[in-house]
């Protein structure tokens, strides 16, 4: 694969979020949170800074409560592996409006780039598909985003796309981490100024 066709996490997420419209975004702790912040902070981003393994369940609860809004979970391979059961729970509920993007660098990037199970061949898209997700894909090249981006935004959910990205570390871009602020800002943007 030539260098230009390799997938870079920041540019892939920027391209996905450029078409977010009124999508509600939940991010998993670590680099996926920074990647989404690097695109630009947004009141309808709910950033997780902890509770590892919870990105998909927070997205699922939001999708069930807001069935008319698209919900996009952006998380990493390590975070997803800690909550694999959540893929089964989401598949059993089958929310039409839930999409998951897993940024997979096959590493625990926050803790020293130790390998995750995806580096040994564990196939997150395959797991989601056999759980019962309606569509899944694994993207390795920039050109494959042409199909994956619309799938994340418009395909009937639940859908999951694994983005196989290089393990290059990007500069830290830190969004707010005050939990009550993030929660209330999100609720007010979604539900109106009366919500706190």
């Amino acid at each position, binding site marked *: 694969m030539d260098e230009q066709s390799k997938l870079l996490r920041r540019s892939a997420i920027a391209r996905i979020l450029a078409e977010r419209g009124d999508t509600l975004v939940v991010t998993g702790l670590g680099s996926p949170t920074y990647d989404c912040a690097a695109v630009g902070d947004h009141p309808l981003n709910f950033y997780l800074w*902890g509770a590892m393994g*919870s990105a998909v*369940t927070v997205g*699922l609860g939001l999708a069930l409560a807001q069935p008319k809004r698209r919900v996009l979970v952006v998380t990493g391979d390590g975070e997803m592996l800690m909550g694999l*059961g959540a893929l089964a*729970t989401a598949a059993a509920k089958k929310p039409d409006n839930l999409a998951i993007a897993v940024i997979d660098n096959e590493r625990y990037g926050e803790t020293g780039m130790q390998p995750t199970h995806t580096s040994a061949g564990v196939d997150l898209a395959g797991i989601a598909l056999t759980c019962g997700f309606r569509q899944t894909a694994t993207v390795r090249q920039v050109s494959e985003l042409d199909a994956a981006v619309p799938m994340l935004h418009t395909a009937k959910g639940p859908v999951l796309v694994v983005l196989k990205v290089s393990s290059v570390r990007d500069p830290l871009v830190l969004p707010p981490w005050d939990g009550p602020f993030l929660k209330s800002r999100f609720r007010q943007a979604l539900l109106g100024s009366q919500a706190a």
Partner: protein
Amino acid sequence: MATRRHGRVNNDATGTIMAADAQNWPNLIFEKLREFDVRHVTYVPDSGHARLIELCHAANEIKPTVLTTEEEGIGILAGAWLGGERGVLLMQSSGVGNCINTLSLARVCAFPLLMIVTMRGEWGEANPWQVPMGQIAADTLRLAGAIVYEVTDPQAAVATVEAAARIAFNGNLTAAVLLSQRMLGAKLFKD
């Protein structure tokens, strides 16, 4: 009185055995949850919650979600609250240990979190494997920041759920109601 197959039995103070499902507390808790506009009922089942779970599945306005592990419910209820809806997490005391780190999500963001926990390993338990977690469930929840209410009398159950729901939803706090084996009865492992 004969016990139900795989069911729980109650021993009251005089030693008389009566069927737990003759009591009405699950129906009263269900009505109380509806009164609080609870829309999401997330659970890993327990026989002590069986009637309440049945009622929730039969209710049109409630979305029940079965979990693979209890901490998923904390995430789902946080997401539901972000989306403007309330919920409850039902589990057995063994599930409390599974929840510890994820309880930080509710605490650090001040999400309202209402939990109803049926106890094992606490009173008349036959299975020793249930005892270690059952004995530390209440303390574990307190250490994780929950307000804990322990119920031994079935007649106090609904009032306690109401108190816990009010403090959780009005105060954006974590509240857990622990239903004792004294009111649920202990599983006897008999056919």
